[in-house]
């Protein structure tokens, strides 16, 4: 897989505030890339630079083999963005909104009608076409936001906290659509989110803290590096668990034992084979990774 986004030594300051400090990372074509960080970590600044809305101070940004410097208009044609809050015109109908935005990519007339049909089929919003965007429910509006981001058939879809505030059903629908697009169109998805379960599904994760990259890797690499494993043992007494000599916690019908890594878990199981009749080994969660790396918890957008 080739890199579709390459960022090297990117920096951006607003007066005294260093929003982004010398960050470098790559996003491979077709992958789901997650960008994690609390509010103010520098995620939105980086996205705004990629989208050509902010000028960088230093560094290079290469999108699909083209440098951002001097190719901004070409690059804008390859990017679609779903913003955290719907930014469509609430007073206008869904059709008027999509038509006015499509024209900005020079998609008009028959080309627009064709694209609209494709998007209506994909996102099932034919019945909403004449309704003002301001009268739609949160989930319906999100579907239209995605349709708007996909108007220009982008190679890179940037999702800026797309599921914040959505109900689980709508969140699932959104991810189903994105998954279909990735499979069928090999679309690269650049995601910022506060939901760790969404980040756990990513192919690659970058954690940003105070404008700097604190950690990066696949979810597995991050979990292996920054968290241990957990062995959940069922049908044993607390005295038996204490014999293992590892930290543990009691849960409803079992005990969860913390181990530094999977090989340590294997050693324990071999040594105390008699008590491991019903058990499971799980990796640490992305929440634990984030907490270890930044010392902060991500909780629906709030820093703890």
């Amino acid at each position, binding site marked *: 897989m080739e890199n579709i986004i390459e960022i090297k030594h990117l920096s951006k300051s607003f007066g005294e505030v260093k929003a982004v400090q010398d960050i470098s990372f790559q996003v491979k074509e077709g992958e789901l890339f997650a960008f994690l960080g609390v509010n103010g970590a520098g995620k939105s600044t980086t996205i705004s630079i990629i989208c050509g809305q*902010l000028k960088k101070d230093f560094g290079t940004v290469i999108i699909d083999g083209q440098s951002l410097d001097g190719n901004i208009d070409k690059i804008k044609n390859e990017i679609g*963005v779903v913003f955290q809050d719907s*930014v*469509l*015109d609430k*007073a*206008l109908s869904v059709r008027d909104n999509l038509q*006015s935005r499509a024209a*900005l*990519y020079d998609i008009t007339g028959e080309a627009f009608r064709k694209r609209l049909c494709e998007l209506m089929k994909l996102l099932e919003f034919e019945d909403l076409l004449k309704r003002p965007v301001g009268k739609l429910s949160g989930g319906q509006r999100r579907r239209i936001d995605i349709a708007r981001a996909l108007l220009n058939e982008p190679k890179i879809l940037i999702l800026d906290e797309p599921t914040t505030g959505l109900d689980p059903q709508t969140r699932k629908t959104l991810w189903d659509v994105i998954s279909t697009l990735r499979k069928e169109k090999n679309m690269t998805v650049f995601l910022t989110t506060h939901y760790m379960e969404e980040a756990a599904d990513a192919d690659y994760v970058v954690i940003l803290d105070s404008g700097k990259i604190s950690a990066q890797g696949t979810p597995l690499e991050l979990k292996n590096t920054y968290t241990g494993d957990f062995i959940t043992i069922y049908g044993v007494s607390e005295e038996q668990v204490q014999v293992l000599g590892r930290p543990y916690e009691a849960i409803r019908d079992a005990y969860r034992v913390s181990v530094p890594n999977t090989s340590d878990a294997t050693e324990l199981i071999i040594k105390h084979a008699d008590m491991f009749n019903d058990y499971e080994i799980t990796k640490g969660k992305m929440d634990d990774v984030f907490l270890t790396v930044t010392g902060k918890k991500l909780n629906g957008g709030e820093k703890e």
Partner: protein
Amino acid sequence: MIGLGSLIKRNTKLFFKDKGLFFTSLITPLILLVLYATFLGNVYHDSFAMSFPEGMEVPEKLLDAAVGGQLVSSLLAVCCVTVAFCSNMLMVQDKVNGTRKDLTITPVKGTTMALGYYIATLISTLLICLLAAGAGFLYLGKVGWYLSGKDVMLILFDVFLLVMFGVALSSIINFFMSTQGQISAVGSIVSSMYGFICGAYMPISQFSEGLQKALSFLPGTYATSLLRNHAMQGVFAEMKADGYPKEIINGLRDVIDCNVYFFDQKVELSTMYLILSGSVVVLIGIYVVMNMMKRK
């Protein structure tokens, strides 16, 4: 310019869909018309009557038409600029609700976006000001009609030029605004101040000499004078035909700013047009350049 037509359509649609914005813009000239007809009209009438030498008979219809011409020209001079400020709110609303981001991630150029806002505001402001001009013509028809077809066309052309000026000025000022509160405050300040500094509420000839000189540097002064010249041309022609002395007519023209002086040099109508259209070109140029350099 890819997307310009679509942006103009979108911006104009949003203006007329926002009933609050539309009626606020429409109500400004209506309030001014009522204010002039009920209050300022009497002041102007008395002022006119006293301008003639004692014993000289002036037909009431001619006097009413003169007052009406002054009222209508003042009304149009003020509302072409104040309505522009009321109508030109979308560029700030787009910043406030984040829509601006959705427009700037597209390949559309900053200059196209700027012109989209400018032309859409021009259309909506022009529509309201033409309605105001229509109401003004009806009022003149009622109190005394002395306008020729050419005068009417010139008044409409003056309105068009002044609206272009008002929209360009409001676009530059609103460019720096980022909240609804700021833009409302600017609208209120402009609405209350502009009528005074352009000579609509009170003729500039009544101000102190220093202030007159300072105001002669503002393009709005000449826009008001153009409208006044064309709105009162018929009345002065009738006076001349009725045999009123040339000195009295010229004196009246001086008093009500039909004649405007730049450091004692009388400014011709053609020069006034040059100043106004030149200002429009310069202001639009500044606005476009500001938008080209916008990316932070």
